[in-house]
């Protein structure tokens, strides 16, 4: 027997990366800004989106959402109340969304044409580990951190926070009762992702929503 070394030098997630690149081209051609929202479960991704979709709709902007969960269409039903097109993706046990799931759910999405959309929000499965490896073809990745989770989440999950373009500190209406150390949270985010854009929001009181919406508008203009 002889041995032979074959150099492969290929990405393990090559198939996902290729599908994501295809999606990104489609999104760019359609002129839709796609954002991938990632956080742990219960950070308030859906509450943020409920308010965001309503705010955008009152400004005459067309937005839609794909929402990922292991089971149930509860989030899609919540978000559909905003009037925006929403489609649920159930992963049935898989801990993240991948590019193939996005492609499949864009196909045959009744009444939705990418070209007619300004924004497409993808609410990922609540998980601070696995979603960071899977490109969904998004332009902007947004990581959420709620004041109830503790200031050190970025230090505990650097892989995810380092891959984000922007971060939202959510539920700031609860900052005082939770004894949330704002300065420490901002420092931690900046240690893990220097220069990251940070927004502090409350979907309940709508604090910080204006800045967040202004960021979305600015992102769309620069695309």
């Amino acid at each position, binding site marked *: *027997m*002889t*041995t*032979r*070394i*074959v*150099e*492969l*030098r*290929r*990405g*393990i*997630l*090559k*198939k996902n990366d290729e599908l994501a690149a295809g999606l990104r081209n489609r999104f760019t051609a359609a002129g839709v800004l796609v954002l991938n929202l990632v956080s742990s479960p219960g950070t308030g991704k859906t509450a943020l989106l409920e308010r965001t979709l309503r705010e955008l709709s009152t400004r005459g902007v067309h937005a839609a959402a794909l929402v990922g969960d292991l089971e149930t269409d509860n989030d899609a039903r919540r978000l559909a109340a905003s009037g925006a097109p929403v489609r649920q993706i159930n992963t049935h046990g*898989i*801990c*993240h969304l991948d590019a193939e799931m996005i492609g499949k759910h864009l196909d045959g999405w009744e009444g939705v044409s990418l070209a007619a959309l300004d924004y497409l929000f993808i609410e990922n499965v609540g998980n601070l*580990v*696995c979603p*960071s*490896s899977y490109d969904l073809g998004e332009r902007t990745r947004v990581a959420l951190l709620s004041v109830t989770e503790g200031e050190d989440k970025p*230090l505990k999950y*650097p*892989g*995810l926070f*380092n*891959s984000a373009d922007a971060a939202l500190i959510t539920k700031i209406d609860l900052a005082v009762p939770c004894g949330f150390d704002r300065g420490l949270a901002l420092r931690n985010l*900046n*240690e*893990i*992702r*220097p*220069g*990251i854009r940070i927004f502090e929001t409350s979907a309940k009181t709508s604090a910080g929503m204006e800045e967040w919406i202004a960021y979305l508008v600015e992102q769309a203009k620069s695309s």
Partner: protein
Amino acid sequence: MHELSIAANIVESVSEAASKYPGARVKEVRLRLGVLASVIEDSLQFCWGLATEDTPLAGATLAIAMLPVIVHCEACGADSEIAGVQSFRCSKCGEPAADLRQGRELDIESIELEEPETVAAAPVEEQR
């Protein structure tokens, strides 16, 4: 916990590459994983055993090289390795550094194949 799907992706990719060498057995698969790739080495090794079971890759070992984070510093221009993943700052000048040059790799570097000899040896001569 997505190591099982990562392992399944490796099996698919390596099987395809190895199929170009009929009769060869895959002895080892060598990976390069960045420390920020969100893959746990022990967990991937465990899943590798499961994913290769009853496939032509059964018994192949998985050799994993973990790569540290290297950042490029805008301030001083240096590329440097950071110690750990708790602070993304230039190791030379201490300025924050967001530009990653290494640390997210999730790559199959190479595979080692065992192939039957193409020219038959002379067993009688050898065994004398």
